[in-house]
């Protein structure tokens, strides 16, 4: 990603999740869209407040699981019926009941890996460097006990002064400017 200069956004710090949700709702209704909340645990209300509903993790998982199922079952069938058909214990080459088990396991394996890595990929992780970490107070609390709302400078409504005032209206602990 290209290195950008300037301001990433304004970061408001709150003590309680309720304050954060209120601020986020306010910002959303004020027309801000490019923004995000940062919380030490999952605050679903905050996500709803900033209008994040779409979630494709499930779909990725489903596709992964089906791929695993098909891959393993066809592998087993190919091996036992075509690649090297051998009479094993008088059983048919196509012993499908036996093939179910590995196929089942691979369904879960592929689905699980898709769920985990799909989630990371959708989140854009790993992202070791992020402008937010430049904020002096962010790492003090975002992962332990503070709640943050960041309005990003790329939002068309963003204005350094107006937005700061807007945020101050929610009585945050502080509002700081985050640089790239």
């Amino acid at each position, binding site marked *: 990603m290209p290195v950008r200069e300037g301001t990433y956004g304004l970061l408001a710090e709150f003590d309680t999740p309720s304050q954060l949700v209120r601020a986020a709702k306010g910002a959303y209704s004020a027309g801000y869209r490019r923004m995000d909340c940062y919380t030490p645990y999952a605050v679903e209300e905050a996500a709803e407040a900033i209008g994040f509903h779409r979630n494709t993790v499930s779909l990725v998982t489903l596709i992964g699981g089906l791929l695993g199922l098909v891959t393993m079952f066809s592998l087993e069938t190919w091996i036992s019926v075509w690649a090297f058909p*051998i*009479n*094993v*214990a*008088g*059983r*048919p080459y196509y*012993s499908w009941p036996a093939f179910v088990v590995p196929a089942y396991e691979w369904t879960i394996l592929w689905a699980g890996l898709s769920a985990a890595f799909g989630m990371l990929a959708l989140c854009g992780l790993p992202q070791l460097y992020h402008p937010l970490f430049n904020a002096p107070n962010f790492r003090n609390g975002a992962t332990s006990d503070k709640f943050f709302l960041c309005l990003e400078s790329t939002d068309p409504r963003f204005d350094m002064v107006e937005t700061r005032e807007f945020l101050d209206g929610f009585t945050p602990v502080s509002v700081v400017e985050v640089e790239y």
Partner: protein
Amino acid sequence: MRDSVKENMQNTHAKLTLAEVRAKLAGQKGKKYWRSIDELAGTPEFEAAVREEFPEHSSEWIDPVSRRGFLKLMGASMALAGLSGCTKQPDEPIYPYVKAPEDLVLGKPVYFATAFPFRTGAVPLLVKSDAYRPIKIDGNPDHPYNQGGSDPITQGTLLDLYDPDRSQHTYYRGETRPWVAFLGSFRAMLADKKASGGQGLYFLSTTVTSPTLAAQWKKGQANYPNAKFLQYDPVNRDSAYAASKAAFGEYRDAQYKLDTADIIVSLDADFLSGAAHPGFHRLAKDYANRRRLDKTSTGEYSMNRLYAVETMTTTTGMKAEHRLALRANDIAGFAATLAAAVGAGSAPSGYTWSDDAQKFLAALVKDLKANTGKCVVIPGEQQSASVHLAAIAINDALGNVGKTVVYTETVNPMPTVEGDEIKSLVADMNAGKVDWLVILNTNPIYSAPADLEFADAFNKVGTVVHLGNHRDETGLQAHWHINAAHYLESWSDARAYDGTVSVVQPMIDPLYGGHSAHEILQSLLDNPDVSPYEAVRSTWGTQAASAPGGEDPDFGWRKLLHDGFLANTAFTPSSGGGKAVIPAPLPQLAADALEIVFRPDPHVYDGRYANVGWLQEIPRPITNLSWDNAAIMSYATLDKLGVSEHDVIEISLNGKTVLAPALAIPGHADGSITLHIGQGRTIGRVAGGVGFNACQIRPSGSPLFAAGATIRKTGQEWGLAIPKSHYIDHRATYVGGDGSGTHSLEGNEAIDRGIIRYATLDQFKQDPGFAHEGYGKDDPAPDESLFPAYRYDKNAWGMSIDLNSCVGCNACIVSCYAENNIAVVGQHQATVGRIMQWIRIDTYFEGDLAAPRAHFQPMTCHHCENAPCEQVCPVGATVHTPEGLNTMVYNRCVGTRYCSNNCPYKVRRFNFLLFSDYDTPSLKLMRNPDVTVRSRGVMEKCSYCLQRINEVKIEADKNNRAIRDGEIITACQQACPTNAIVFGNINDATSKVAKLKKQERTYGVLADLNTRPRTTYVAEVINVNPALTPDVGA
């Protein structure tokens, strides 16, 4: 790796520390030193001392397996790095011939006829030779005597040939010398003694079997009339010879004709368990042929009936319809009583018989009298002369002579009572009369009766020469030791049981340049350099040349070598003969007296095969004992003596003592302990330290059995290796017995589970389908499955085993070992249950263990069509072939052992450690090149001799023809003396096996599991005397 039990046993020997070993050796210099360290190294004390110094699994560090271990770890770690599939094979060199023999086609075996000159009569052989290395020994199928059958000992002589412990040099006082040095010294002595007629020159030989050797001695004696030629083997035919001398005035051999005998009575004669009984191959074959339920011309079943009276439980006794266990001492009394009852002699006084014995006697007498001329009484080799005389008299009285028994000249050319010869020799030795003692292939220091103190007498002899296969106990003490040539390496001759002459011809150049007795005796003659070949040829050449044939003067001789025997040389029965007078038998033993019975070991015989790993390891019939020997007794005696199995007891007899572990077996006579001779050797990597030497208490006066023994418990235990199940369960009522006495849980379960199915002849007549009636005895139909059955359209290999014919002799097992390169695992591993045999003979004891009925069942891989093992192998290392073989692909096996768990027959064997010997050069020569030698971590099992199938298949395919019935013979089938095993194509309705499988008596073991086994059994039918046991059978 030996367990603590073994260590305990070692502790019963005097303990040594390494310091003491050094002290023992200190002060001994030069020539004495070599002898001591050699003597010491093999002794249990020395082993114990080593263990003491390196206590923790000392043997693990010492044995060759571990030395290679580190290299293997390197290999393994490289492999674990993931590249083993890619590792390269090392460069393999090719050593072509410089001049190739013209008739040799490398890769194709050649077969040669020869004979194994065993002391009970020659066993005619056909030896398979690969690039002139004998790799498999089997009976000669064309020979009239054994018709292809063999026995465990004969099979085992192959390993004896390649035994790495064989003596490899001529030694003089411990230093190697060339053979000519001995010859020079020997001939110088002969020249010296020429004048005195050989005064002071003694020969002590093993029983002479070679007519040529006898002829050589005869001529030699003419030159040296005062020289003496004596014979001694610890197991001999003294009783038979003494009896025949008494009855006929000269030594005679009895030949029994079981093909015409309806009633057979064994008076302690174990004629069904191995070559230790003269004529075993023929007797077993004739016996079995009368048990195939063939019908006579009148439509009756021509089945024989066997009665046995014996002490030690033997396969003969267990095959018998009716068996009476008597102490060895009392059998003579029984024989005399029987003789009196049939009108030969008078009944001995002072004998009282139990109810059972009286009932047995009455029924037997009745049966015999009803079958005069069609019955036979066989006396035991290890019974007294009085029993033999009684048998002669009974057979005479019943009109059997000339019909079921004939008397001929002796098979061995120099019959003698050996027990007397050794006594006279020792007397002469002690008297200082013996100047030179030449010991030929016998080992008196080990085997002479203890009270003769042979070792002491030995020191009074000027010069002792020992010719032997091994530098054994005697060889180590003798001044001269000469390494003997094995019979597969040398020329000789011998007569089979029926008298037919066989020529022993060498299969291979002597591996270590050994020499034979012929060469030594020839020195006595005027032409001392005549080779054994010329000597043998001069004996039989004329007779052979008279055979009709081409103009070639060599034709007859070549035919003799080709056939392996000289036709029409069987003995003609001597007519007439003397009258047997039965001497008064020994008085009946008091009820509380304890008797010791000495018997040859069923496998290692008198100790001469003690270093043959196969024979040591394969469980003996009945006792199921692998390695070791034991004080064998009945359960009642065990209880009475207050000892448990595996307890080490001290047996004292006439002031001599020996330590022996106790072992109870079903059916042994009470108040009697059987000791097997042949163990307790002190030399050899296999034999050394195995068991105890029963000769240590053997009295020269009564070498067969002796009363008056006392027992003392030592408090030690010895872990006897009994690889087969040996739990004896006392919960008789629960397991299905009648609640009285001791029953075998296994035996009852085997009958209950339909593993053993049998009926009496009467039951069979009424209900020929008895084998398929009852719970779990109906085999599922082929299509009784969710899945469609696999169709086998072409060849479908199968096996049928006739349980009526199987006598449990173990020949098949040894044959399988030789054919399939099966590894020997050793005493400890055998104890743990890791014995590798692909075929075993399951023995089930039914009923009260004091008087049981045994059932022998050879058990191999059943090649189930729905093989449970295959289904569970994760890598497909065991799969089915289109011909229905369950194949084991060793190189694919990763060793999960799941297949073994899922095998209901438990016939799979696993290489838990590196059991195969990859290092010993001589063993490499012996291996069957067509069978992979299995390495560690690999499962293996019976393959139906796949290599033989493939060989025949390729031959047939080359010629575009179908495989003929009988063209493929499995190794077990080939060795079987009774033809109990039949192999072939079950899809070919005309094949023998298919016909057998159609018999109503044929059943599959555990077939109700729907495994669809390819091996089936023909159920046993026994011909009981209704007067004795009316309620037996399935």
